[in-house]
């Protein structure tokens, strides 16, 4: 009886110890309720525990992560996706007005033209998909960027979800690169959030999925 009480007490102690507010614990990546994982303020890297319910990352995400890791500018240039913008239309005033591309001859205002990559900090702008974007991404590696997690989440400006590759740089700040099927669509400077802060930022929505960096493999 005494041994049983001791063992029960030990189990309870372990359970309480693991569920406390210890900021150094490693959170488990969640496959379905991303908010549970992503709202953790822990500075730890998301758990590398494999989760069979987590769908595998698409090859393009792995390719982008590898190209960033390897500082492969030529590969990154090939992996730029971007989104077209309406030409010749003056946007309404407000935040994030963006570029006004010139309409090609014969096309009417509002025609979607070009491929643009979003550059974001707290608010954003966009630039044509090209060498400048590659330079920016290589610049993240120059800052010491290491992959912290990948979040599959909704950007509410689009019906399509994106994969946000969240990086931490040497200063402790977070950065991110967003990827869709077409390739790289955005570079984020983090708005002074930490890597876990950015995981929370995108992962707090209920249908987000958080992947540990160990999932980024072929």
């Amino acid at each position, binding site marked *: 009886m005494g041994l049983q009480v001791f063992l029960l007490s030990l189990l309870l102690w372990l359970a309480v110890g693991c569920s406390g507010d210890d900021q150094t614990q490693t959170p488990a990546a969640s496959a379905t309720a991303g908010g549970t994982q992503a709202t953790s303020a822990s500075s730890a890297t998301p758990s590398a525990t494999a989760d069979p319910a987590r769908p595998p990352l698409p090859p393009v995400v792995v390719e982008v992560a590898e190209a960033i890791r390897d500082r492969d500018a030529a590969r990154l240039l090939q992996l730029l996706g971007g989104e077209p913008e309406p030409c010749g239309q003056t*946007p*309404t005033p407000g935040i994030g*007005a963006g570029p006004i591309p010139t309409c090609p001859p014969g096309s009417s205002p509002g025609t979607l033209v070009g491929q643009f990559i979003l550059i974001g900090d707290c*608010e954003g*702008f966009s630039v044509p998909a090209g060498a*400048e974007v590659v330079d920016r991404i290589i610049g993240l590696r120059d800052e010491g960027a290491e992959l912290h997690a990948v979040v599959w989440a909704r950007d*509410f400006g689009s019906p399509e979800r994106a994969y946000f590759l969240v990086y931490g740089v040497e200063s402790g700040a977070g950065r991110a690169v967003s990827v869709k099927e077409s390739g790289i669509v955005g570079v984020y400077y*983090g708005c002074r959030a930490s890597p876990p802060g950015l995981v929370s930022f995108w992962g707090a929505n209920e249908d987000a999925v958080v992947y540990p960096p160990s999932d980024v493999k072929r």
Partner: protein
Amino acid sequence: MPGFYVYAPITGTVTSCWTGPVACPADPNGCGNSSQMAATGKYCGGAYTCGPCCHPSVSCNEPQDISTGGGTPDIVFTADPIVASIWVGLASTACSSGSGCSSLPYTRVMTVYMYSGLNGIGTFLGFVIFFHVNNTIAIGYYITSIEPGTGHAYKVIGSVPSGSCGRCYTGPHLHWERCGNSVVNSSLSCGDTMLRRLSWVFRYSY
């Protein structure tokens, strides 16, 4: 002319401030199209490699972004206790049609009118505008409370949203602007830490 202070509504870091003595470039490559902006502010941060980039003033003057660092805290309107009541108005015009974002709460505009008396009576003291506000309180009059310790008047009016939306909202922050007969605290600059309740940002005269 009497005046009063409005304090930081969240704790965080200044990530944009006013133009000050530096003029924003007329055509800032990589900063959006400033010809569409009422530019009385400038962004600061790693994304802006082309020098000072104009930060649009959506409705009033001297927009300020305060980064939360990743959290989604309550937004607490805080002012000197002369502000006995506020009237809250809501709109959804924060984001440009070219921003790729038309979703609430990112487009949310919340106007806070300040009064010296209860329920909008007394002297009209001015107004402040907040952008990207989640979990907003409803349109109407509210009596402010007095915060223990500081003695400031306050009211929780919403919270900072998570998740991004096009070019309009790409990181966790609050964007707010002063309106009317007011000035900004000229000693604040990019990177400064703001403390909710304690850091005064705007001074209003009435």
